[in-house]
Every structure is written in structure tokens, then in C-alpha cells.
């Protein structure tokens, strides 16, 4: 029974979400957000459990997870460093901060450190071009990222 994968807390949160939605399918995205917040990513087990809960095929859940880039089918580090490299951030030298982070952490873009503390990814425009180069670490936005500021931030998070 795959529903056992979901913790009691998560199940409570899910029933709250379902109570707010007269139809089940529209609750899928909020439910997946909740699962990811609690679990860090959406494992195949969670995927199956959510499908069962909503009475839809697992492939329908998989389709959603692969379509939306914020939904993660694999775990990421505790701090997920997401550097915007779209135009306004590129113009202000975004690539330098990405390189600084990778150098310091000894990983390539898209990778996670061996201790699972940091993941570095590049993302599209964050809607924060006034803060360029901008980045997001988990839910928080950071502005004017230079190599120095990346190193300061990593000092703080380490």
C-alpha cells in the first residue's frame, strides 16, 4: 500500500488541500508542492501514492513532474543555488557568479556536493532583473551576485 509512504503530517496537509478544491485534479499541483516541501523531492513512491490518492494513473503524475521545472524527481542539496542566466542577468555578468560557486564547491553546474549540502543550477529569468545578477536559494531571492557575494553567501550557509 503506497499511501503509507506519506507521513501523517503530509496526509493532513493533503486533506486540507483537497477540502479547498471541489474537484480533485486541480489539487494535484498544490499536493505535489506540499510533498516536495516536506520530502525535498518527489520520489517514485510519492508519485505512486499521490496517483492512488487522486485515483489517476501514475503516468499522469509523472507527466506533471516532468513538465514543471520546479518539481524535482531527484533530490537536491540542502541549499539549492539557482542562478539566473537570462538576458538581464547575463548582461551583468551572471556567468561569473555561477563559475565562482562551482569553483568553490568543486562541482559542475547541475551537480550536488558529495555532502548533499549544495546544488548549483542555472535557471531562466526569475522576474528579478532589477536585482541582476539575481539568484534564488530555496525560496529566497538574492540580488547583485558577484563572485565575492557568492563566496560570502557560501560562508554564511556552510
Amino acid at each position, binding site marked *: 500500500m503506497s499511501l503509507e509512504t506519506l507521513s501523517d503530517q503530509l496526509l493532513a496537509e493533503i486533506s486540507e488541500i483537497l477540502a479547498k478544491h471541489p474537484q480533485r485534479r486541480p489539487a494535484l499541483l498544490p499536493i505535489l508542492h506540499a510533498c516536495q516541501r516536506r520530502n525535498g523531492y518527489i520520489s517514485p513512491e510519492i508519485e505512486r501514492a499521490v496517483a492512488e490518492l487522486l485515483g489517476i494513473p501514475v503516468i499522469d503524475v509523472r507527466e506533471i513532474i516532468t513538465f514543471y521545472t520546479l518539481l524535482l524527481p531527484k533530490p537536491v542539496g540542502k541549499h539549492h543555488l539557482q542562478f539566473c542566466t537570462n538576458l*538581464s542577468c547575463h*548582461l551583468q555578468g551572471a556567468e561569473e557568479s555561477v563559475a565562482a560557486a562551482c569553483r568553490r564547491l568543486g562541482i559542475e553546474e547541475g551537480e550536488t556536493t558529495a555532502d548533499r549540502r549544495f546544488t548549483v543550477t542555472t535557471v531562466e529569468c526569475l*522576474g528579478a532583473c532589477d536585482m541582476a545578477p539575481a539568484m534564488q536559494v530555496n525560496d529566497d531571492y538574492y540580488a547583485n551576485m558577484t563572485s565575492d557575494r557568492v563566496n560570502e553567501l557560501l560562508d554564511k550557509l556552510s
Partner: protein
Amino acid sequence: MEKILSKHFFNPEARRLSFYLQNDGYEAARKALTCMSPQEIIEEVMKSNLRGLGGAGFPTGRKWSFIPKDSPEPRYLVVNCDESEPGTFKDRHIIEWTPHTLLEGVMIASFAIGAHQCFVYARGEYVRYANILQTALEEAYRAGFFGKNIFGTGFDLDVMIHLGAGAYICGEESALLESLEGKKGWPRLKPPFPAVSGLFGRPTIINNTETISYVPVIIRNGGEWFSRLGSLKSGGMRLYSVSGHIRKPGVYELPLGTSLREIIYTYAEGMRNGRKLKAVIPGGSSTPVLTAQEIDVKMDFESLAAIGSMLGSAGVIVMDESACLVKALAVLGKFYQHESCGQCTPCREGTGWMTRILHRILTGRGVKGDLENLVRVANNIQGNTICALGDGAAMPMISFVTKFREEFESHIFHKRCTAVR
């Protein structure tokens, strides 16, 4: 010029209901719900010449008038806060600094179209900002501004904030509806238009966050007042997002029809480090680029259309002489390739081809005929897809290559970048 939406930006107090109420907050909504009929509200918005500020510029009052009248069928208001068009960050400022203005607009718009349920769709990355809006909403609920029997009029309204999950396409209105229904964001064929058959097949009005946020002041001061702030056919003010190689990036609230030169040099304080201006994208990454010679254009829908560009989301991206436009275009190409939803072949395949050609040129492997192919692929996307993402990918390609051809040719034929370092 007195500011409307941006008056209290950066003042955290202004988010609070108490502050908002001290500044005539929810008075426009009270007036609309207690003294005006839905039809009168729609007429006032028509008079204001308020146009859609999400990108397409469709007249807002006219859009509302398409909602079927005298039908018992439920209908919805959907507020688009997906804000993913590169260069655009005004809606984020609205929900961060003046969330109650949006909520008051929601109340008036919902009453005008007869909706009892509104959904606000915010991009997933904005989770912190959406939480600010949620807090404001809860405050407003507690004060009786939402829920049942608002202002004792018998009008009921519920609002739900929904988070997207990282997909530019979900800003397109019909993809947004699919996403709200729990599906992947694949745009729908139109017609039927959402006003007739939208969310769950019900009549639905979708408006941008900023569009809805201007509604309260229109009801308070009148449509004509608002209209006179702007230019002939585009009423009022709007928030220009200015970024790139500029001294003071930020959001500037100015009348429609303010010149681009004034926005860049007066408000955003001009170029950095005494650099020369090279190119400007006037309305978000999807709009055709302008050269430094074209910046005397008035920033309204008609004037930009007249010179072959668009006002779009008013996301102004400024590039100085140090910008390599081949690289800039390659960055945009990669964005559209990544964000194409994959439904229509010309867009799914074409964005990949264009990006590969640009990457080749950028890495010194460009060949004769590349630019012709790039433009040909772009032309074959434009107009051949279900939604306008394809057009948005094609327009930068065609305009960059046409207006800055020498720069591309220098990369192809001389393996040399002409950007001034």
C-alpha cells in the same frame, strides 16, 4: 506626476490593511458594490482606455463585456501573476508592496463580471511574495472584505492563490487555465475564447496583475481621469520594468506615451560607466529590438507598433556597446527552446534549430547561409502555432539579425566579436 501603484513601494507598512484603509483603501470597492451596477463599472473601465498590461494590450473593459450576461452559469476571474517574460518584474512589486490594491481590484472586477470565485496564479518562484499576498488576503477576509455578503450587499466572493511550478508557458492564458485544472500547460486552440469557455469550461476573464490593480483608481477618480493621464488610445499609467546596462534598474510608473529616451536617461539615470547605448528591447524579451537611433519612440501600444515593435509587458532591457548581440540572442534562443511546451512542431523544433545555429555562430563555426536559415526558421514558426510563444521566439531573431546584421556577419565571416569590451 503623482504615482498610483508605486506610491508606497518599499514601505513595508503599506502592505498592512490598516495602512491601506487609512489611505482610502477599499473605498472604491465599496462605491462599486454599493452604488454602481456591473454594467456601469464595465463602462467606466471602457472609458478609462485601460488596456491589458500582461502583453497583448487588449482593452480591458471590452474583454469584460464579452462575459455572458443574465446566465446563471458560474464564471471566474483569474489573475495572471505568472510574470515570466524576461525583463519583467512589476507584478512582483505589486504583490510585494501593495497587495491590497490588487485585492481591491479583484473585488471590483469580480463584481463587474459576476464572478464569486477568483484565482490568482503566481509563478512558483514567487512563493515568498505570494505569501505576502496570502497574508493580506487573510487580513482582508477577517475584516469582511471577502467571503459572504460583502458590504452587506449579498455579494459573495472567494479568492484562492495558486502557485505555478516553473513554466513560462503557463503565463499564456489558456495554458494557465490548463495548469489551474491540474494539467500540464498546453495552450488551447481559440476560439472558443476563455470569456465564453474558460476554466472548467465556464466563462472566465483572465487579466494581468497590474491591469487589475489599476481598476480601483479608475472607479475612484473616473475612467476619463485615468484616460487623460495617458496617450490617445492607451489610457493611464503603467509600470515600466527597466533592467540591463543601466545606472538605476527598477520599476518606473509613468504615463503611457512617455518616450523611451526619457525612461532610460531621465528616470533610470542613463548608461553606466559612460558607455554608449547599442540596443533596447522595449517590452519584454519577445518584442522586436530597437536600435539606439529609435529611442525617441513614445512608449504606448500604437507608437511602438508603428516602428515595428511592441509595448508588450513594458520590460525594457537596455544593452550598451559592451553587449555581444550574438550572445544576447543565443541566451534568448535557449530560453524559448527550454520553455516551448512541445505541442506545436514549428515551435518545438524551430526553437531548437535557431538556438543551434546561434550557438554555432557564437563558437566561431558559423557558415554562409546561417543568417538566412535563422530568419527562415523564424518565419516558419511565426503565425503557425497555437499560442504566441512561437511568435515571441521568432520576433527577437528576425529583428536582431535585421538590425544588427554586421555584428552577426563579423562572427560568421571574420570570427570576430565587435562588442566593445
